[in-house]
């Protein structure tokens, strides 16, 4: 009997821990002021992204930035006279959790989705929005698998092919390195996508790739072998198309083995300076690709950055800026299509698909942004270099 009680108690404790986990997730999802309880007709814009986990800085940045933009738009009278309700769900950058988050938002009555933040999760969700005919605009999922075959999905960030190509061109033009080593995550569509396009363009512009090394999601804590191979091959520049969590490990291990090539990351390295307990001095001199630099002088950037710092603390990254632009792009498209929230999801979706292709938007992340039918944006990426613990634009 005693044993049985023991095991019962244990079961209860385990079950409780499971539910506690759920509770933790859902409590961060909906802050009460975002939920429309008045029964008033509003635009229901949903957001999905990782607010916890390995890419948490992106999700938090996107969530905060959308909130700033939504507050601004609402204060200025909303879109076509209707206010916006905004609801953001955490997906930990996991495709399964992302689809769950999407279903939660659908139950809430979402009409337009601004998300998801990471490519792998976004590809899963865009298949769902495509079937449900819900218009989707992702601030930061750059893989082509997100937009391919989904006429309802558009990107604010530049796509992977674009990033790979631009990086190779940039390295060649500025003569940053002659012998290139590449390390990429072969289990991640974003990382492999950028890598493939970089490799193609690098040969075109005459860069010599001396080492190409991969890692997988199950084996992403030890890069010493990959680094050693690049070092042995004589690489003087490492192209690192993956996220900042692994980026911080690569930089630490390269430092431990006394290997100091030029490090060139793409947009996934944004967030490197925010890794908890990471020695940021290791990131000095790292290049990364971004359409947004928080140190830009123009009025729009300054106002956004100061609002962000005031409300949430910290400097917003490029995905926050992309997400902020996203709300205004949706606003412009909705105004061009002259819609009201009474329209069905399908009507909104079809109208926005054609409206967004006529939008020409000047935002934080680029001038004259336009979209093609494939869902890709046309804008200029910029490279920044990390100096004294901050981003400095290089031209």
């Amino acid at each position, binding site marked *: 009997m005693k*044993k049985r009680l*023991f*095991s019962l108690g*244990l079961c209860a*404790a*385990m079950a409780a*821990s*499971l539910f*506690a*986990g759920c509770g*933790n997730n859902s409590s961060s999802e909906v802050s009460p002021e975002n939920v429309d309880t008045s029964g008033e007709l509003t635009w229901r814009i949903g957001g999905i992204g990782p607010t*916890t*986990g*390995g890419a*948490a800085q992106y999700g938090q940045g996107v969530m905060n930035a959308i909130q700033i933009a939504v507050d601004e738009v609402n204060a200025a009278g909303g879109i076509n006279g209707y206010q916006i309700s905004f609801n953001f769900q955490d997906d*930990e950058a996991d495709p399964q959790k992302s689809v769950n988050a999407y279903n939660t938002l659908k139950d809430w009555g979402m009409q337009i989705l601004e998300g998801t933040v990471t490519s792998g999760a976004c590809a899963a969700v865009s298949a769902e929005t495509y079937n449900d005919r819900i218009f989707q605009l992702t601030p930061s999922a750059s893989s082509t698998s997100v937009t391919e075959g989904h006429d309802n999905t558009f990107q604010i960030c530049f796509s992977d092919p674009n990033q790979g190509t631009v990086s190779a061109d940039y390295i060649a033009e500025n003569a940053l390195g002659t012998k290139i080593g590449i390390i990429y995550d*072969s289990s991640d569509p974003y990382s492999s996508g950028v890598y493939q396009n970089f490799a193609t363009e690098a040969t075109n512009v005459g860069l010599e790739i001396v080492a190409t*090394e*991969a*890692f*997988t999601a*199950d*084996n992403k*804590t*030890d890069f*010493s*072998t*990959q680094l*050693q*191979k690049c070092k*042995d091959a004589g690489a003087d520049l490492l192209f690192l198309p993956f996220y900042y*969590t*692994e980026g*911080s*490990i690569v930089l*630490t*291990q390269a430092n*431990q*083995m*006394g290997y100091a090539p030029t490090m060139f990351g793409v947009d996934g390295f944004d967030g490197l300076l925010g*890794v*908890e*307990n*990471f*020695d940021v001095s290791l990131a000095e001199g790292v290049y990364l690709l971004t359409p947004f630099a928080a140190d830009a002088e123009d009025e729009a950037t300054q106002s956004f950055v100061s609002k962000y710092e005031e409300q949430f603390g910290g400097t917003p990254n490029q995905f926050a800026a992309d997400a902020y632009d996203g709300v205004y792009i949706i606003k412009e498209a909705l105004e061009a299509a002259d819609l009201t929230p009474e329209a069905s999801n399908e009507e909104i979706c079809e109208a926005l698909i054609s409206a967004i292709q006529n939008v020409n938007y000047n935002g934080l992340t680029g001038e004259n942004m336009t979209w093609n039918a494939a869902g890709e944006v046309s804008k200029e990426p910029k490279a920044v270099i990390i100096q004294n613990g901050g981003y400095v634009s290089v031209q």
Partner: protein
Amino acid sequence: MGFLTYLINGLSLGSVYAIIALGYTMVYGIAKMLNFAHGDVIMVGAYLVFMCMSNTGSPAIVSIVISIVCCTALGMIIEKIAYKPLRRATNLAVLITAIGVSYFLQNMALLIFGSNPVSFTSVIKWQGIALAGGQLKITGNAIITIITCLIIMFALMWFVKNTKPGQAMRAVSEDKDAAVLMGINVNATISLTFAIGSGLAAIAGALLCSSYPSLTPYTGSMPGIKAFTAAVFGGIGSIPGALIGGLLLGIIEILAKAYISSQLADAIVFAVLIIVLLVKPTGILGKQIKEKV
């Protein structure tokens, strides 16, 4: 020079696997159960070291000692609550319970520490040595890890062979019922085994995260599986087997990454395991035990 560097990296990784594998192999040898929660005790150990070092600013060695004490207690508590009531149950029930405890620990860590990865500060401040005019650089992490592993291994072998509790352990692993008849406290012996295994897990956690500095609630699961593989590889139940299995696994993994394909490294490691088990089903140092009918 490249080959030597890979070999040392492999030895260092293998040493961590070996220390973790000890926990699996000792528990299996004595309690005849697979403690799948072992990998997660490593994660808890690493978090404890990290918290002691960053929150209270304790020196590394003090943090590790605190972590060892806490993990030892944790291991004994887990055994007492989750496994002891099932001593007479089927192996399958205990196995499932172990998987449950593993998820329980992961979820508790998610609740307490959150899922954001932290960059672990190495507990070893020594930069290492450079040989052959700087051509061959051996990191302090690698040297200390390998030495620690060897010390633990020999200390443990001595302990099992020459002390009273060690003899009790061997007796229990031979025949539990006969050991009871000889006046050995089987429950206390099994508790001691869990205590030693979990204490070692704390050391393994600190060493693992010093070399591979990213700590999340899932940090322990993959090394746990690899170390379990190492234990089976070397012959589960055998202490020198855990050492040989761990070192071989680490070296094969790094060399496969270096000379065959960095993508296929894991596949190659497990292919080697399958081949070894086909040729020698009990593992490299495993003993053939005749089943009594």
